[in-house]
């Protein structure tokens, strides 16, 4: 294989299905403002990639949206919903913000850590779970709460946590 010029095009890393979904997002904005779709595009390719973003995938998004790669890294490093390291099959975001804190989220966090044998921000050895601390997820009425794979679970107790996690594959 002949050597390539840099930068190597990485756009092919985005699957056709993801591209179709990104295109739907792009269509929501004026044509010259494609980069407005960057947050949606990152979520889509993250999903495609098993829950995390590699540098190559971020480069692919940059190329697809005609943005400088660093501008995509800025977005991906700013928001906690993007993961830049491989994660487990299920991502658990535990809210530790004020309302959840007052309603005893520390019990939930302790229970999760003990049950799974990992600290916040880590992934279990069987790559089943990643637990992360989240800032307010806007469900204060049901505090303490967590979000697992995009689904909210409220009024948590250790028993309820066991039930939820044990039901997952």
């Amino acid at each position: 294989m002949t050597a390539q010029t840099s930068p190597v095009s990485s756009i092919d890393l985005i699957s056709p299905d993801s591209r179709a979904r990104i295109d739907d997002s792009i269509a929501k904005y004026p044509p010259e403002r494609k980069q407005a779709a960057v947050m949606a595009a990152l979520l889509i390719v993250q999903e495609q990639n098993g829950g995390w973003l590699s540098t190559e995938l971020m480069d692919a998004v940059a190329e697809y949206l005609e943005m400088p790669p660093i501008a995509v890294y800025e977005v991906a490093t700013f928001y906690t919903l993007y993961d830049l390291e491989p994660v487990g099959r299920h991502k658990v975001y535990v809210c530790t913000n004020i309302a959840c804190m007052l309603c005893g989220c520390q019990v939930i966090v302790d229970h999760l850590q003990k049950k799974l044998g990992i600290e916040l921000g880590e992934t279990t050895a069987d790559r089943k779970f990643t637990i992360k601390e989240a800032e307010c997820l806007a469900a204060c009425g049901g505090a303490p709460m967590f979000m697992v794979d995009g689904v909210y679970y409220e009024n948590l107790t250790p028993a309820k946590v066991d039930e939820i996690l044990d039901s997952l594959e």
Partner: protein
Amino acid sequence: MTTKPQPKTAEPPPSDLIAIEINGRSMQARKGSMVIQVADAAGIYIPRFCYHHKLSIVANCRMCLVEIERAPKPMPACATPVAAGMKVFTHSEAARYSQKAVMEFLLINHPLDCPICDQGGECPLQDLALGYGKDVSRYAENKRVVADLDIGPLIATDMTRCIHCTRCVRFGQEIAGIMELGATGRGEHMEIGTFIERSVSSELSGNVIDLCPVGALTSKPFRFTARAWELISHDAVSPHDCVGSNLNVQVRGRRVMRVLPRENEAINECWLSDRDRYSYEAVNSDERLQVPMIRINDRWTEVDWSTALEFAASGLARVIDQHGADQLGALAAPGSTLEEFYLLQKLMRSLGSGNVDHRLRQVDFSDDDVAPVYPWLGQSIADLENLEAVLLVGSYLRKDQPILGHRVRKAQLQGAQVMAINPVDYDFTYKLAHAVITNPLEMVKSLARVAKALSARKPGILAQKPEWFSALEPNPAERAIAEVLAGKDRSGVLLGNYAASHPQAAVIRVLAELVAEAADATLGQLAEGNGVGGWLGGCVPHRGPAGTAALSGRTTQAMIDEPRRGFVVLGAEPELDCLDGAGARRAMEAAEFVVMLAVFKPSSATTRALEYADVLLPLAPFTETEGTFVNCEGRAQSFANATRPLGEARPGWKILRVLGNHLGQSGFDYVSIDDVRAELDRGQIAPSGRLKHRALAQRLSGERPALARITEVPLYAVDSCVRRAPGLQRTTDNPPPPVRMNARQIEALGLDDAQQVTVRAGEGEATLPLLVDPRVPDGCVWVPGGYPQTFALAPHGATSVIKAAGA
């Protein structure tokens, strides 16, 4: 939220002015201007880190907080527009309190280790901490630490020192036009950097060092070598391109320690290209020639000046005696000074030879007789940013003349349409509105088709050469280029370095002139180095100083094709500085006697000068000589030497003067360079972009080879100085020269699996790495010139590429 800086206009109408008061002083301010701008204009200092007059306003450092009457809280002066009757207090108790509070926050994470920081002594944070900081920090917790990534050979990073002003990020987005640094992470974890380890590639990258208000971004080559207060600054001018950027050459003792921009709003503003900033490394290199040397019986001996000059003079006199003065030729590097050009041609012509030229990378000289008095930009540099349409012909403006590239980018940001007819789809920092990317010969026809598309406006333009145009039919891109050029009030055509070195450069020039005339556009030509000085100094074979008649002679190409018996080479390395490097070497080897005025010792790795030269005279580079550079707008900038010549090197004008004496020529008795300047009175030469007439006998286009070589000289290979600047040589802009073709072409040649290929062009051959590059058009192979690995290849015409043996 960013606010665009207000465009500056000359004199605002009175209705635009409002009265405000700063620190009790009444003043007029323009509506919409920011408090800090008004204060700056009035000479009232407000501390700041993130605000910079050339960058957008972000108001994120908060250092410029001021008290404003009736405002409930302190306001950032950089982002607060003036209002009628506003009363601002920049030094009141409340303002000072806010400023001190901000300083305390800035210093929370900033290391307090100025003695080991390279910025110490010229650091705005250090200076302002003196005025606004506390004696003792109340902060006892751990400070943030940021890991550093290597971002290339020019900029050193210490991001732990960063105060997040984002000037460097905004510079990338707004000025360099290529965002390479960004703010990743959030809150406490925010870091400025490239995120992944990669070299920054902007040709203007070094400016972030000047912009950085702390020691986070510093100059890698300069780092830890000197303190600001040890340096003496000297005004200088850059020799590397036709811009003539203004420099501060900073010297400690006799050594040039660094080069910084000297602000000149008309030329380089406050910026400097990396080439101009870092080329000084070469003047301190071990490769400097410091003592005159002569070769007797193939042995080089160091001698004193008088022996060397006597040896040189007698050798040249012998050539004249035995073969006649016409057998003498002189080649000057385009980066020589005006005075050197003038004295070189005066010496040659007084010896009876008109064979003198500085256009070493030009091969087509057929329009010399009708050429304007010097290649002119067609407007001032500052005016470039007012163009509404720009057509670049054979120009990688961004890299070849970075400061002009920046001006054109500014025009583009204001809505100008930039278009190109180029042999490579170069990476500009903006989208080209229309472009024709095609092989070198087709480029000429393409320009002709643009002229034809414009002929509806001025049918007369085709009259001189109807046969050129009759069979041509413009394609949509060419029609669009014509339409845009003609449709805008202020449009311009710029002929770049590639156009000047094109085998049919004269045809390109005449066609560009037709296009410019039909579209009412300005026509600009870009010469290399101090090329304008070369023309005005008379260092061309067909004209004397300032375009006067003089003894005529042979061009560079003619001197190569019909080698002379004796040569004087001023500051050039023939193999690398001549486009036809192989031909230049042949000519030098065929000569009986070669005198070289050289800044650097010839290296046997790059040149055979040690075999063909007879005398080497150590020449002072731009930092060690007084002289004049004339830039592309015709602006002559004289400068004094920043430091004394190294070793026994001498300024070129002095060497040529004494050589004139030794050769017994009269009129070489100058005492100072002012005497030379007085004699070389350029008078009032009106610049012109126009050829005198267009009677050219050339054909429009030549025979197109199956595979044509595209030869251009990349920005860090242009002259002997930058070729020896280690920092520049290691940048991503200066990879080992590859062979570039597009994938179709590689497949057509059956080279799909080749890593190394052998290129043959003319009588030369080179084995180089092969790169797939979609920017190269079909039928072309792009091999850069100016490198030891590639100079043997003929610059133009038929080329073959095969898989390298054993690869």
